[in-house]
């Protein structure tokens, strides 16, 4: 085809190309519009409306059921009647309305006049003031005249205006009075059946498809006008997002899809339409963590700003099953390079830590608390520094005097594999593990263990028990162990399953003692633990020699025959020398190392290897060992372990998911696994020992570790402990150290021993529950008691032991209890009880009538006491507590045998003191204080009365 001159292309063809390209452009434009408009979260909100309708439907049903239809009909009829009455007065109303119109016109006119006068007056006043100020008195005087006249006029106008508005109000009231009956009927209806209408209305409007306007409001391009489907967001208060250079506001848009997260009534719906499972603690407007203040990702983690679809928020499945469900439902896949995905549900509590600092246990964070408890149980903090855990004592027993306690052979076998001796031990396992069970490694390990034990015994101080064991009654001993309270800290072999329920882990599991220690040592230890180890937390139960011997006798029957027959391989000197050479030559040449080695004699070599091995395995991190004082622990600092980049965790050749929590868990289960498939030399092997943890424990510790992260929350956003909470926490730490929680349930926490059948059946036989103890006792009494424990409840078999507490510790415990109840340190004790006339006699009568003496020893009878001696009460109990206790003992200590004489606010003895509860209680309290006034017991009191003297 011939083209026109000056043309390179055929225009027709080019037009076609243009048309083609334009159509493509239009198509891609449409694609952009759709791509931009269709967002998965919108579908979620539309479906949410249906679910809302469903819930409202149920509600409507309930409301309908509560309102009778005939009642509604009657109410409606009343309205109609009211309307009729109103209509019949139409003429009167019209007249009034006319009057109203006239009045309002006058008001309008007067408003304008008053406005003008008022502003002229203000202006003139200002001028007058100015003139006067500048000394232009003549002009001022002239102006004043005018101003006064104006003000009079304005004042009249204002007065008239007031009258007019009063008139208006009267007319309005008159008009309203004409429809009085109607209003009343309407009000009545609203009160009785209004809820029905409201619910019905809400129900009718609760579907996206019910209102065609919805489509227009959410149509593309114009959905900015007033959309009903829109992104919801919360900007957290005082909690920020760490941008490393700066802090920025935390914006959470989770509620865009989790539409009802803060609305009760949707608990049974599926996610994302579910109500938060714990609205009282989280999310709820009245909870301590309201959604609008705390946000969502603060605790849960995740991409709070991102709202596009399920995957954008970076949810994480709890397990494989959930993952598969999500894949089917949401095309779930993990995002790439996400700072903090949403925590797995079981790990959510790791998010509490960043705000709740300075507290060992965070209320209601159960999994985290369990994890932290495990850190103490396993003694992780011994080898690993963790900020905030420095105050804890070394988890293992002191080895300063080991030679007097056990034999070398026993120690070697023990260190080699503790579980051979004690299947429940907390001592972890270093040897014969997955990475060091090759024969050549075993040989070297044997040499190391021999040397370690040699070193320990060489450096052990001498100790001799202060008394001798002369045999005892094993059965009696066993009963004592059961009853006296040992089981709150120890599990003991042969003591029935019942006591395993207690699950005590504070002290070691007592097994095989007969193959371990001598009778002399054991008696001496039981009677006075601090004699062997000065800083032990093992308390003295004030055992008599007889009692201690009986217990010893039982414990010595526990033997581990198999273990005691084990023979540990002898030290292979060549292996020892080889190892030493390796140590010596790490910075020196072989020749120098050999010279150095040659300079040591045989025993010195063993000791040298022992010392180096103890350093290598970090034994000193958990045990006090002579020669290692002040050495820093060998483990990695765990303070921010939860923020460690995944790439810094060595997964080795293990085929597991490369994720932080997976690594943590597997590390707990077997810390040596990462060496699998690595060709490592002996000294480079991983050294973290194996604790033989259960999966559950590993999971809990993972939660703990994930909580140890470097996320920062500004001070204002954190939970800052007040002085009471600080004191409480300090007290808690001391009580935790001595395991007060083993026996006592303190304000809902602890009391493990109560699980034992004997105590569960009869709480009165159990160690007392310390609820509100800070309120109950006087601080000075409490302090003295802790230092000088004596019997308060003589009927108890279980004993409050005497702890090795320092003065500071005693003070801290007392202050902690006081702070729990937010009380002043001292509550005044009256020097002398002041009686009102007749009150004392009434009190004595009450004592008799209520039969207090049937349980409490008061000096009225000679029976075995069944309740605390009230002669001690004055110095021990706070007056306000006594009254509280008398009024309702069950609320103070559930399960107590103390009867309630004032149930439901009525005194059981209405004849005394006018039957007034308050007066009776006060009288009783005064009497208790009075009988305690005397120095008790007075000299010769027991003898005089014939009462049994308490031990």
């Amino acid at each position, binding site marked *: 085809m011939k083209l026109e001159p000056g043309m390179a292309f055929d225009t027709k063809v080019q037009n076609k190309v243009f*048309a083609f390209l*334009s*159509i493509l*452009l239009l198509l891609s*434009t449409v694609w*952009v519009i759709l791509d931009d408009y269709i967002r998965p979260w919108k579908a979620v909100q539309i479906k949410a409306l249906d679910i809302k309708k469903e819930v409202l439907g149920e509600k409507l049903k309930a409301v309908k059921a509560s309102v009778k239809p005939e009642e509604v009909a009657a109410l409606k009829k009343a309205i109609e009647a009211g309307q009729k009455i109103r209509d019949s007065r139409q003429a009167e109303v019209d007249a009034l309305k006319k009057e109203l119109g006239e009045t309002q016109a006058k008001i309008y006119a007067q408003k304008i006049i*008053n406005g003008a006068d*008022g502003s002229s007056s203000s202006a003139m006043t200002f001028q007058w003031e100015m003139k006067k100020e500048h000394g232009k008195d003549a002009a001022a005087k002239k102006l004043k005249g005018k101003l006064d006249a104006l003000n009079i006029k304005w004042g009249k106008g204002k007065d008239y205006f007031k009258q007019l508005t009063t008139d208006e109000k009267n007319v309005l009231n008159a008009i309203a009075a004409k429809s009085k009956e109607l209003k009343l009927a309407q009000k009545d209806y609203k009160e009785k059946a209004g809820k029905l209408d409201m619910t019905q209305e809400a129900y009718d409007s609760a579907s996206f498809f019910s209102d065609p306007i919805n489509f227009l409001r959410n149509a593309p391009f114009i959905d*900015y006008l007033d959309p009903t489907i*829109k992104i919801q967001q919360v900007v957290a208060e005082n909690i920020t997002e760490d941008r490393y250079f700066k802090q920025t506001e935390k914006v959470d848009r989770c509620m865009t899809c989790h539409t009802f997260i803060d609305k009760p009534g949707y608990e049974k719906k599926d996610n994302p339409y579910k109500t938060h499972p714990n609205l009282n603690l989280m999310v709820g407007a009245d909870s301590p963590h309201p959604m609008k203040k705390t946000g969502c990702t603060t605790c849960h983690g995740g991409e709070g700003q991102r709202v596009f679809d399920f995957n954008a928020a970076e949810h994480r499945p709890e397990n494989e099953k959930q993952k598969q469900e999500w894949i089917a439902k949401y095309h779930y896949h993990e995002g790439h390079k996400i700072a903090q995905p949403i925590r797995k549900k079981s790990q959510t509590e790791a998010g509490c830590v960043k705000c709740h600092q300075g507290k060992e246990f965070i209320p209601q964070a159960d999994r985290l608390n369990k994890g932290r408890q495990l850190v103490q149980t396993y003694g992780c903090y011994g080898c690993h520094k963790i900020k905030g855990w420095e105050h804890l004592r070394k988890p293992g027993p002191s080895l300063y005097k080991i030679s007097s306690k056990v034999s070398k052979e026993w120690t070697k076998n023990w260190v080699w594999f503790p579980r051979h001796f004690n299947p429940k031990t907390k001592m972890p396992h270093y040897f014969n593990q997955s990475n060091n069970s090759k024969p050549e490694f075993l040989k070297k390990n044997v040499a190391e263990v021999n040397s370690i034990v040699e070193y320990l015994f060489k450096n052990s101080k001498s100790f001799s028990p202060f008394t001798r064991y002369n045999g005892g009654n094993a059965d009696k001993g066993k009963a004592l162990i059961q009853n006296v309270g040992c089981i709150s800290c120890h599990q003991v072999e042969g003591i029935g399953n019942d006591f395993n329920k207690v699950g005590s882990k504070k002290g070691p599991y007592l097994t095989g003692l007969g193959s371990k220690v001598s009778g002399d040592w054991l008696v001496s230890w039981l009677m006075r633990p601090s004699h062997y180890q000065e800083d032990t937390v093992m308390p003295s139960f004030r055992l008599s020699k007889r009692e201690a011997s009986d217990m010893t006798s039982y414990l010595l029957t526990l033997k581990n025959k198999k273990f005691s027959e084990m023979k540990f391989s002898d030290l292979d000197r060549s292996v020892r020398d080889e190892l030493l050479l390796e140590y010596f030559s790490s910075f020196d040449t072989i020749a120098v190392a050999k010279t150095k080695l040659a300079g040591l004699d045989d025993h010195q070599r063993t000791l040298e290897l022992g010392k180096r091995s103890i350093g290598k395995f970090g034994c000193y991190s958990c045990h006090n060992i002579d020669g290692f004082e002040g050495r820093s622990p060998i483990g990695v600092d765990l303070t921010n372990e939860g923020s460690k980049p995944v790439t810094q965790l060595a997964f080795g050749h293990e085929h597991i998911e490369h994720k932080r929590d997976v690594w943590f868990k597997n590390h707990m289960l077997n810390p040596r696994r990462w060496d699998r498939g690595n060709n490592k030399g002996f000294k480079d092997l991983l050294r973290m020992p194996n604790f033989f943890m259960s999966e559950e424990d590993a999971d809990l510790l993972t939660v703990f570790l994930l909580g140890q992260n470097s996320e920062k929350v500004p001070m204002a956003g954190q939970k800052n402990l007040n002085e009471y909470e600080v004191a409480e926490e300090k007290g808690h730490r001391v009580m935790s150290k001595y395991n007060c929680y083993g026996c006592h349930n303190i304000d809902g926490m602890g009391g493990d021993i109560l699980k034992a059948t004997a105590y569960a059946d009869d709480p009165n036989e159990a160690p007392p529950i310390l609820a509100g103890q800070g309120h109950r006792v006087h601080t000075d009494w409490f302090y003295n008691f802790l230092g000088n424990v004596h019997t308060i409840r003589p009927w108890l078999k279980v004993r409050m032991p005497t702890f090795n507490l320092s003065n500071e510790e005693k003070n801290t415990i007392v202050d902690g209890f006081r702070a729990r109840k937010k009380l002043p340190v001292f509550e005044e004790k009256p020097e002398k009880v002041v009686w009102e006339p007749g009150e004392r006699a009434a009190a004595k009568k009450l004592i008799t009538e209520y039969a207090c003496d049937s349980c409490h020893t008061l000096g009225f009878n000679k029976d075995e006491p069944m309740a605390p001696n009230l002669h001690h009460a004055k110095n021990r109990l706070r007056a306000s507590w006594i009254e509280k206790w008398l009024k309702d003992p069950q609320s103070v200590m559930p399960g107590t045998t103390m009867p309630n004489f004032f149930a439901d606010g009525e005194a059981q003895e209405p004849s005394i003191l006018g039957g007034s509860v308050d007066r009776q209680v006060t009288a009783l309290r005064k009497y208790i204080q009075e009988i305690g006034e005397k120095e008790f017991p007075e000299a010769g009191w027991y003898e005089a009365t014939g009462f049994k003297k308490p031990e």
Partner: protein
Amino acid sequence: MSESKKSLNRREFFSFLAVGWITFTAATAGLLGLVFRFLYPNVNFEPEMEFIAGIPGDYDNGVDERWKNGFGVWIIKREGKLVALSNICTHLGCIPNWLPGELKFKCPCHGSGFYPSGINFEGPAPRPLERFKITTLPDGRLKIDKTKKYRYEKGQWNNPDSYIEV
């Protein structure tokens, strides 16, 4: 050239070009429309238009200023009614001050004055202050919705959503 042939030619000439231009214009308009839409953000960080303002018992008779700075609302309780009054002057949008001594709102910009009821009585303001929607939630708390406004001069102050009887 005959008339019919000319028009045929023109139609032929026009067809692809016309399709091209129409679709091109449509696409461009679509893209420009998107740009127009782009300038309306879907979320914003200004104070919320709805808020919960405690319970009616929190308020004494008179003017309450606790929500003025955060949300721009006076809660006024008088004559048995609780209303949420806007603090935007109806003249040019300044923020009037509440003068408790003189019992009036006074706008600092051009001197408009309003009674505690919100009705203007001096200065250039053309109409009374506006009321916002105020409702009681099922749990008894007050909800104030600033997206709905009620104007006196339109007779909207009689609307039951514009006040709460207490």
